[in-house]
């Protein structure tokens, strides 16, 4: 079977490097090129791996590429995705899918009309603990889900992440979408209403770095989620993804990065957690590549990306108005 030709567009989001490392060892993939307007950002990845560099992603889209992986600033996801779709390329787009409901719906529509697939990069779906949790829930091990408490607390990223015009939002957008996607996945329902606090409490920045979301699902499940960039320099790791799922017959918890060693080294003079669990990015890339090659529907659609990102957008509206926000049908 011929190789899947992949182009990577922008390394603005550091996940691109991890996706590249998941692609490189694969024999069913050929990396055609990496496009990034900042050559310095991608030169450590292009030349050493014999990958061609493109300054303008439009030039990369002219190549015979089957699919692209977009890891640009959030504000550019829509434009690049639409261009890629128009060029007939399948798309794996970094989360959040977009920064407004309208642009995300347009991204989905354009990909559909061009007959290309759009997948949202939610690697947490490929955490082994999450895969097993989904099985346990679907098999009814904890009965029906009643409520969920989630956290995706992290260290504050730098650069464009904390510039509103490029990121579209701070911690609440950045760290709501992963866990809400998992909540959507586990409950099999859609969010009906969001009430949220959005604040800047931890850093001297303009953008939000703290929040708390209360979510109500159409099927009656309720949830609370903390997306704050509240991990300090002294904390032993970058952050967490946790979910505590209360069911009618039991409780299931996921602590995604609990598989760690405690490391104490005088080199850094702070405790550190060394994660040794499975690599979720490999699972994500494998799923994307396999789906596209076998012409099967991708496992996490653009719609899925939209359904979680709109919850974060509703959180901002709720915080502005001080009221719960009902999501439009």
């Amino acid at each position, binding site marked *: 079977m011929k190789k899947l030709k992949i182009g990577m567009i922008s390394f603005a989001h550091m996940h691109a490097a991890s996706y590249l490392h998941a692609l490189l060892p694969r024999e069913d993939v050929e990396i055609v090129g990496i496009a990034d307007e900042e050559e310095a950002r991608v030169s450590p990845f292009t030349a050493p791996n014999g990958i061609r560099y493109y300054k303008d992603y439009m030039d990369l889209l002219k190549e015979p590429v089957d699919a692209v992986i977009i890891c640009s600033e959030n504000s550019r996801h829509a434009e690049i995705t639409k261009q890629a779709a128009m060029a007939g390329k399948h798309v794996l787009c970094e989360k959040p899918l977009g920064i407004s409901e309208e642009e995300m719906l347009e991204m989905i529509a354009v990909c559909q009309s061009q007959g290309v697939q759009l997948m949202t990069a939610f690697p947490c779906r490929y955490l082994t603990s999450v895969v097993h949790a989904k099985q346990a829930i679907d098999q009814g091990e904890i009965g029906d889900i009643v409520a969920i408490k989630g956290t995706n607390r992290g260290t504050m990223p730098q650069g464009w992440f904390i510039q509103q015009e490029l990121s579209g939002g701070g911690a609440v957008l950045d760290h709501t979408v992963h866990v809400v996607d998992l909540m959507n996945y586990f409950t099999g329902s859609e969010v009906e209403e969001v009430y949220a606090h959005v604040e800047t409490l931890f850093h001297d920045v303009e953008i939000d770095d703290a929040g708390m979301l*209360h979510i109500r699902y159409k099927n009656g499940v309720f949830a609370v989620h903390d997306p*704050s960039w509240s991990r*300090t320099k*002294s904390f032993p790791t970058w952050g967490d993804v946790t979910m505590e799922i209360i069911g009618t017959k039991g409780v299931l918890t996921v602590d995604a990065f609990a598989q760690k060693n405690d490391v104490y080294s005088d080199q850094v003079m702070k405790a550190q957690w060394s994660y040794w669990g499975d690599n979720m990015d490999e699972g994500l890339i494998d799923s994307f590549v396999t789906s596209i090659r076998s012409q099967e529907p991708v496992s996490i659609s653009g719609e899925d990306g939209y359904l979680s990102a709109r919850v974060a957008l509703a959180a901002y509206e709720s915080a502005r108005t001080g009221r719960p926000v009902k999501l439009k049908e």
Partner: protein
Amino acid sequence: MKVSIIGAGTMGMMYAHNIAKIKGVQPAGVCDVDRERAERAAQLCQTSAYTSLEDLLAQEQPDVVCVCLPTHLHKDIVMTLAAKGIHIICEKPIALNLEDAREMQAACDQHGVRLFIGHVVRFFPNYRDAAQKVKDGVIGEAGVAHLKRFGSFPQGSDGWYHDRAKSGGVIMDLMIHDIDYARAIFGEVESVYAAISRSDQMEYAQVTLKFKNKRIATLSGYWGYPGPFTTEFEIAGEKGIIRFNSNETLSLNVKVQSKDQDLGERVQVPRSPMMYDPYYYELAHFIQCIREGTTPIVSAEDACKAVAIALAAEQSAELGKPVNMEVFS
């Protein structure tokens, strides 16, 4: 100082276990409608058992009475004791509604007796340590707190905990500990949002408190948890994080070899033993406040505010909207 106990259930036994250890305290009778229970508690602190409060008061002439009755019975007893000029240490919550709580406070003021409410979490060494560290600025300005309290559904005498008209439910009875503690950390609450699920087997609640200083505390409480009694907290600040998990601080774990699998299961109870339990510190502190006329760490006013917040949470859960605390002041 002569100290009596009324109510010899779980809490009364706890008080009986501690009261005789406090310097200068003379146990002065235990009263319970159930003679066996009264005798068991009386024996624990080497005092007499009563089944009538009148008899106890006439015989023992106490200076202080500890009220360890179900919550719905607090008010009548406190009013009676106050009128007789007896100081009162009453279990939390002070009352099931604000009017009763305020009346109790006023009666104690009017008769010149002290009223203390047993918000014992303030006296837990782990919670005290964290509160002190926050106060000392160890984690910089605290921003977001998580507080969790999960346990089995308490049985109590005649299953009074199951009757919301008597116990007030999981927020009023269990989560109120964390409500009070959150106030101790962050100050006055501006608004409350809550969601709750109730069935015969469980009550689970998620409550978020927004403070006047923009800080956020999110609380979860669970009656009917299938695991061991669990408390957890995390307080995240600009310059550090303090966390506690009761399942990770077990200093003693005895494992007994047994051919009988069931027995083996039963005797392996990990523990966190200490010289004194938090109730000792609480009672000793209140006794000292009576003796020296000093202000307690946690006042009846604090107890009233905790009740107000619990009521606001109940109302929020019912309305599905945030509730501003001004309505409850």
